[in-house]
């Protein structure tokens, strides 16, 4: 058993004597009724030495196929971008890893300044004037923005594009069921939010509209056109992928009032889905309805520049049931990775990366779309991800295609049905780690897999019959 305590027998005797009790158990006996004492050991395995725990955790890790083990085109919300080495080094520093929320600003200036820099970077990226210090992750950030809209106008209906990631849409529904709003979903047409159905869904009782850029099929939405038809007084909320914002017109210039998004792509690991961070930026109008921590610049009693947590009268520890949110956790460490990543990328780098992904994504869609039995699901502009439809005959399955590709060392992307999309197809994501050679390899493997699955699917059926 490992232990991180340090009480020796001698310590124990001295401590008990000072307290004036005869045993540690007496402290529990005198405070907890016997009827609710466990009275037996927990049914858990015995503790292990550090090296044995390492071995066990390594064995579990070895039973996962990570993005290092195959050429992976998986995306749909989290992406295998390169994380620069400086981020590992900084995140492991005790001074960033082990403090708590900066309640004592005099000894937390590092943390607070990081928050301030992060807020500035997110504000620049989104072209919106205010950002908080981060929230949990992407989909819950979108749902929290819904609560902000609820506080802003109290209206009972939300209109949401089917282009939202299904996890975001379901999270929004779950939150909205709590605070009491109905979510109306508007379908896609030709890969983007159907503009006619969207306009038809608008009415005076709509409190917020929700869309995603690029949408779940990788298509670039005409955000300015979609926000232009929102009802007066409602809140336009959009979830953005931050990576293409070097080349895509930013939400602040498209009529978006609140921009949220998943921050994993900004210097954070995949980690099987978390922890990462959610970003949350807004127009000035919504500053005092924002959830979460916000750092602000100020001076100390000697006139020196410093930073503090600010606008705390929004927050739960002061306002309790009247707070604008229950959130008291930023994702400070993950947001640190975010601002270090954006600084590493830099002013030119973010444009260059966006352009690189645009070019390679186009190449990949053209190349894969030329395969027999494979075609793009839509013809909209794409910047980092796209959907394909597969023709697999009567009996072939997309999962069968994926299995065949994986057997050849390439994970070709996510079956659309796993996103709840009723199309036989794949969502294929491109990062700067997927080279042209990787894309060409995927094309070769996918062509074989689709051909084999189309005929083998039929053969399986014959054998089964």
């Amino acid at each position, binding site marked *: 058993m490992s232990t991180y305590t340090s009480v020796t027998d001698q310590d124990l005797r001295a401590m008990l004597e000072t307290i004036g009790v005869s045993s540690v158990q007496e402290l529990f006996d005198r405070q*907890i009724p016997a009827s609710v004492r*466990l009275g037996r050991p927990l049914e858990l395995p015995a503790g292990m030495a550090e090296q044995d725990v390492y071995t066990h955790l390594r064995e579990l890790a070895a039973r996962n196929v990570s993005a290092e083990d195959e050429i992976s085109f998986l995306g749909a919300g989290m992406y295998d971008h390169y994380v620069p080495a*400086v981020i590992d080094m900084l995140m492991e520093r005790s001074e960033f890893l082990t403090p708590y929320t900066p309640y004592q600003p*005099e000894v937390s200036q590092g943390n607070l300044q990081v928050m301030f820099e992060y807020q500035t970077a997110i504000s620049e990226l989104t072209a919106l004037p205010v950002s908080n210090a981060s929230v*949990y992750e992407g989909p819950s950030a979108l749902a929290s923005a819904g609560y902000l809209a609820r506080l802003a106008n109290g209206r009972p209906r939300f209109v949401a594009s089917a282009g939202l990631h299904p996890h975001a849409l379901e999270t929004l529904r*779950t939150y909205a069921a709590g605070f009491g709003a109905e979510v109306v979903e508007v379908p896609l047409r030709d890969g983007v939010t159907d503009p006619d159905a969207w306009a038809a869904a608008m009415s005076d009782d709509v409190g917020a509209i929700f869309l995603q850029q690029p949408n779940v099929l990788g298509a670039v939405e005409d955000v300015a056109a979609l926000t232009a038809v929102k009802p007066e007084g409602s809140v336009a909320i959009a979830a953005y992928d931050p990576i293409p914002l070097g080349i895509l017109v930013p939400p602040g210039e498209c009529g978006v009032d609140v921009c949220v998004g998943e921050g994993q792509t900004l210097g954070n690991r995949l980690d099987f889905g978390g922890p990462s961070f959610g970003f949350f930026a807004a127009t000035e109008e919504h500053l005092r309805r924002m959830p979460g921590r916000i750092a602000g610049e100020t001076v100390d009693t000697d006139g020196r520049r410093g930073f503090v947590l600010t606008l705390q009268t929004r927050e739960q520890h002061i306002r309790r049931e009247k707070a604008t949110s229950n959130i008291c956790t930023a994702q400070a460490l993950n947001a640190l990775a975010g601002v270090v990543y954006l600084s590493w990328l830099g002013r030119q780098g973010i444009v260059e*990366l966006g352009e690189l992904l645009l070019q390679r994504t186009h190449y990949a869609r053209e190349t894969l779309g030329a395969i027999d039995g494979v075609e793009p699901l839509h013809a909209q502009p794409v910047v980092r991800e796209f959907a394909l439809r597969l023709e697999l005959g009567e009996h072939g399955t997309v999962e069968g295609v994926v299995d065949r590709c994986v057997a050849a060392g390439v994970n070709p992307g996510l079956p659309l049905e796993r996103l709840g999309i009723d199309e036989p197809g794949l969502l294929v994501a491109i990062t700067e780690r997927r080279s042209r050679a990787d894309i060409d390899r995927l094309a070769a493997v996918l062509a074989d897999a689709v051909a084999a699955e189309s005929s083998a699917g039929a053969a399986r059926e014959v054998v089964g019959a």
Partner: protein
Amino acid sequence: MSLAPDPTLTIFEAGSPGRRAFVAPGTGVDHVDGLLPERFRRAQGPRLPEVSEPELVRHYVRLSKRNFDLDSGFYPLGSCTMKHNPRLHERVAALPGHAKLHPLQNPARAQGALELMWNLERALGEVAGLPHVSLQPSAGSHGELAGVLLTKAYHADRGESHRTKVLTPDTAHGTNPATVTMAGMEVVKVATNADGGVDLDDLRAKAGDDTACLMLTNPNTLGIFDTNIEEIAAIVHRAGATLYYDGANLNAVMGESRPGDMGFDIVHFNLHKSFTQPHGGGGPGSGPIAVSDRIEPYLMHPRIVRRDGDGDAPARFELLDETNNGHSKSIGRLRGFHGNYGCFVRAYAYICSLGAEGLRDASEVAVLNANYLLARLRKLGVLEQMPLAFGDLCMHEFVLSGAPMKRDLQIKTLDLAKRLLDHGYHPPTVYFPLLVDEALLVEPTETETKETLDGFADAIAEILAEAADDPTIAQNAPYTTPVRRLDEAGAAKRPVIRQPL
């Protein structure tokens, strides 16, 4: 306090136009113009910093030295459980099989991750004394939201949607009432009795047909274990409501007493507290919940299912969600994917290291250390100026009231806290819980040595003695930190929350 005093420019003020760290790889493909229609193209790129890698590293390393951290010193922040963060956890979480695993990898190729999560669910369920666990919530407050939404779904399913009131004691964490409002319910406060527990008469008067839930922390934020817990559970259950356990203080009772056995229906864990996830300067956290049989049908997606193998075949783990027959009564999702897996790896490593005996030992020493520190302060006469708010013993933390100190020595709890910074300690939580005047909430945790506790007690005694001579010293503290007291009122009045460029 030995932190870097030098003022630091922001990363936006550092650097120079044209500098960079990132070098883009070649695209490898023929360049095509016009892929993005002009109306979608950004005219002017975001004005991100322009720095070289050496500048970047130096900037953030220097900033880090302006932080106090747990690895450098004592951090007795009440209700936050600042226990040691073993470095093994960082090592195993960084293994590529964990750290570089895509959340949408086919579950058949993520069996190690799902087994880890399943094992963690079972272990947390055993600690809580409740059989069903969802790891999904991202933090304690997120777990609370899950709990209140589950309660709402449970009542709605029974045709009792009129149950809209959630009872919270006045000692509750601020997240409890804030969560209730977010979930569309109404907060009703319950008073505290003379012993620091729930006032039973007030509870009886308020628990009724419209009550949905009672949210309770036990031991509560006063460090007091409510000895009436079984009676409280009976009152709440007789009224037809659920009983919710805020797990912020679970570190006091692991292996000693279980919320499920006390009668709780829903429990949230703070993996970043009891199970020692590093706090990261305020996140990430992780707030799994455990629930009873009657709440289970409403749990969030996705759920992990274990299927026994045929014969000698190993068990298989599956993920059930909205796309593949997840439970029809589920409240849905509270976030994307499966939760903060990186936190699960660390918490699981911790449980594997300690085992049943080690977890109980952790709670025992946490309670021992808190009582020892309290006794030391008593022996040094500190409690004459700062009496214990309730009781004479405590669980894993205790609350002192600085009211006599403020009256007799002219220094407030805030002044004491700031002066502690000069002594090299992170102060305890101040001004919480709200019902104690000039509150100081102290939680030493089990991983501190007796010498550290002795040193901290001496420092407090010294500050009080100093204040008796000259209160202005504490009133104007700190003196040795990178900055001194900051103008928070000014910051809120004229918010500057981003760098003007």
